[in-house]
């Protein structure tokens, strides 16, 4: 078990290293002088700000230094939590901007991922039992997984928000409210949260349900199932065992899908102007705020790596094979 998790940690460490290096390299690989092109593209009105930023960038990039020195400095700044200054919200440090947005993204992602995973698995296992249900659910599930996240978000916003007028379609809370611990505010928060959550949930739900349905059908053909049936074990026990075994690849699948789910959350936030990381990315792109963009990138990578590790630990808990030192799924 220790070897298994150790190996995973090594990979995550390397991944982080690669991500940081890519982040450092990209501005340097692009043609032209990144500082002036950034400044000229940035929509900054105050001359003082432009000067401050030029000084900051030059210090940050350190173009007069040898490359390896620049690279080390980049790491040094990063490890101190210095991701630069945002252009869009000058002069707020990028890390502050991100920290303010993260709770919104997590608030959308964590419930939608967990609930869609649990509900999808349950439902998929249930559908696999009944032919007619299977035949109606399957095409529906495929349509859901094929739906681009933002399109479902747009449809929901249009149908439930604009046409029916049941839910608000922009922001995380009412424009007339300020964050507080009042019921009015929390109610408004929940109202604004629901549609983005629902669209993320639905697309992911379709994928999990189909995955589980296929896994269960595969497991029900397995030798251990045939043996149990030959010994007259009731369907209840057989299904319980099949579900238990089918869930394992679904846990691995959760790790594999994280990137897609995060991407889904980003575009969904954009549709609903939800003030999470997706919204930041859009603003960063529209305002040519590269520090903000790169900081968000690193933040997301770190988040995904942590989530991956959590899933690995969960996997060890559910798959005895990883615990007995016999390997199991990589």
């Amino acid at each position, binding site marked *: 078990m220790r070897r298994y998790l150790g190996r995973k940690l090594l*990979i*995550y460490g*390397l*991944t982080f290293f*690669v*991500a940081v290096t*890519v*982040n450092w390299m*990209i*501005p340097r690989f*692009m043609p032209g002088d990144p500082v002036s092109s950034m400044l000229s593209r940035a929509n900054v009105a105050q001359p003082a700000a432009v000067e401050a930023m030029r000084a900051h960038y030059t210090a940050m990039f350190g173009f007069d230094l040898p490359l390896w020195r620049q690279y080390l400095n980049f790491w040094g700044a990063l490890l101190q939590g210095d991701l630069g200054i945002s252009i869009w919200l000058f002069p707020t440090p990028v890390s502050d901007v991100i920290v303010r947005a993260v709770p919104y993204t997590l608030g959308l992602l964590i419930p939608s991922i967990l609930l869609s995973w649990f509900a999808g698995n349950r439902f998929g296992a249930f559908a696999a039992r009944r032919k007619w249900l299977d035949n109606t659910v399957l*095409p529906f599930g*495929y*349509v859901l*997984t*094929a*739906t*681009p*996240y*933002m*399109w*479902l978000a*747009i*449809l929901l*916003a*249009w149908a439930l*928000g*604009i*046409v029916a007028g049941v839910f608000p*379609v922009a922001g995380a809370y009412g424009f007339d409210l300020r964050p507080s611990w009042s019921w009015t505010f929390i109610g408004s928060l929940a109202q604004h949260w629901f549609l983005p959550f629902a669209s993320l949930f639905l697309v992911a739900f379709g994928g999990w349900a189909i995955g589980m349905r296929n896994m269960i059908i595969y497991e029900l*053909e397995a030798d251990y199932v045939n043996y149990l049936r030959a010994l007259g074990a009731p369907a209840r026990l057989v299904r319980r065992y099949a579900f238990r075994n089918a869930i394992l690849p679904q846990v691995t699948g959760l790790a*594999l899908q*994280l*990137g*897609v789910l*995060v*991407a889904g959350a*980003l*575009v969904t936030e*954009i*549709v609903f102007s939800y003030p999470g990381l997706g919204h930041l*990315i*859009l603003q*960063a*792109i*529209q305002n040519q705020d*590269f520090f903000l*963009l*790169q900081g*968000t*990138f690193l933040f*997301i*990578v770190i988040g*995904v*790596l942590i989530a*991956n590790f959590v899933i690995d630990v969960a996997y060890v808990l559910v798959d005895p094979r990883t615990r007995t030192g016999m390997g199991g799924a990589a």
Partner: protein
Amino acid sequence: MRNEALHFALRNRKLVVGTVVILVFLVAGLVGPLMFDYGPNEYVGPPMAPPSGEFWLGTTTFGQDVFAQFLYGLRATFLVGALGGVLAAAVGMVVGFVAGYRGGWIDELLNMLTNIVLVLPALVVLLIVNAYLGVRSIGVQALFIGLTSWPWAARAIRAQTFSLRSREFVDLARLSGVRTPKIILREIAPNMSSYLFLTFILLFGSAILIAASLDFIGLGPTDSVSLGLMLNNAARWSALQLGLWWWFIPPGAGITAIVGALYVMNVGLDEVFNPKLREM
């Protein structure tokens, strides 16, 4: 054997329906744009016109023909899916074959690389890269999509290669001194051709979805129309608030139909290739 596969292929409803849907959209994308004597972005009609005999899918806030944009957009969607899918499949095959066939430290190394790219969230990497590119084209978009979405294919192909590696016919080729690339090409790849094809279809679909997300965020090709860009424009110019449903429903429905058809086709093909899955 061939005939048998064809026999089941023509009788597989999923495969037939999926293929028909794909073909309809493909033909529409290829032939459709010829119907217009104007480009997809030209202002040809009254602004915000609902669907009519003249403009089948209405017009945008600027009076562009949504139907023309849709047909041109289909081209971009298929192109990015095909190019991105082919590239990802190619990289995945090279990595998977070499890792699975050679084993040892090469396998370790490639496995490490695969895992790293696998964990990195592809869309976010693409965001960074594309944001720095001033001018973006479909080709470059497909290139980067291909370079980030191969890992799971590589993994699956590696596992398959691994199991084929010790088969008799491969041993025989090895003993008779055939070189590695030739063994992979002549002995291993043909034996998993159906599997490779299935992999390609899934990569095709996922490339389309990734491209649509990039376009929607505003990092789409700067020089053409795509279904994702249509969604981006619709959202940017408040099509929702203005109730211009004909602007944002068709592009999303198109993507969903194409990708969904690819998935269903994939399941159908799987049933044709694996007799065990055929319904009795």
